[in-house]
């Protein structure tokens, strides 16, 4: 018997979780999304031409996709590649596209269009739940997502204590999310390296 320990078992369990969700753990792949959210926070708040706003957002998104593809190639060269099991996450995809994303965008629309409808900033709570579900469904670990979710949930309570409306909080949330997400994906990368390299 080659001296296997409970630590070996736990490490293998983490390897399994990371391999199962390898795409999502390649944090730097998504790093450009943080700045895109920050740009979105500024352009939705600034009084600039609507066409220019859309143009800026589209340009930032295209740039983010190009950066993501290039970084993905670097990850493949460094870590190798895995082919996922077809249909292994069908339920996760259904919940994500049919429930979580629509709820996130509906809350954002409600807070933007009817800021007085609720005494709280609904998007803060809904997006926090979205982040928690993202972490849970993509292999746990990465406790920084819980910190970020707590910040968003905290924003949800701001209208109770101040005169700031939900509409104003949308750009604050995008800013917090953009900065927090940028930090989170760098931490994802660190944690993935620690799991992969046996730390």
């Amino acid at each position, binding site marked *: 018997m080659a001296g296997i320990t409970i630590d070996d078992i736990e490490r293998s369990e983490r*390897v399994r979780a990371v391999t199962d969700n390898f795409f999502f753990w390649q944090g730097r792949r998504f790093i450009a999304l943080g700045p895109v959210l920050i740009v979105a926070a500024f352009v939705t708040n600034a009084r600039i031409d609507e066409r220019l706003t859309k143009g800026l957002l589209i340009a930032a998104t295209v740039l983010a996709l190009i950066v993501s593809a290039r970084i993905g190639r670097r990850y493949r060269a460094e870590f*190798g*590649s895995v082919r996922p099991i077809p249909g292994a996450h069908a339920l996760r995809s259904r919940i994500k596209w049919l429930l979580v994303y629509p709820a996130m965008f509906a809350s954002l629309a409600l807070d933007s269009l009817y800021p007085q409808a609720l005494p709280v900033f609904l998007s803060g709570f809904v997006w926090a739940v979205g982040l928690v579900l993202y972490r849970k469904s993509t292999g746990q670990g990465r406790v920084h997502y819980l910190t970020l979710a707590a910040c968003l949930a905290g924003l949800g309570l701001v209208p109770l204590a101040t005169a700031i409306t939900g509409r104003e909080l949308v750009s604050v949330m995008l800013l917090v999310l953009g900065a927090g997400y940028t930090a989170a994906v760098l931490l994802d990368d660190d944690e993935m390296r620690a799991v992969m390299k046996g730390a």
Partner: protein
Amino acid sequence: MDQTPFAELAAVDRLVHEPSRLAILSALLACAEADFQYLLTVTGLTKGNLSSHLSKLESGGLVAVEKGYQGKIPWTRARLTADGRARVETHWRDLERIRGNARRWR
């Protein structure tokens, strides 16, 4: 008298139950197939040791290894066979049970 968790560990599938092979098989259990580079990274083994473990697993019928060339660059990919997947899944269920027992035993 009930077996201790340590005695239970000694009775499990020895081909699977070796730290490096468990890491290889755990990675393969979570995907359809993985390339040699990926398995090198997750195990931290040398190329020679990884090849040796993959050969043992292939001989034991747990893993299928495919080799080829893309242009002049060689590639190696590994995947669990149907029997291998069933055995590794059973092994993981056993490990989870043993770990649960070990926690109670402490």
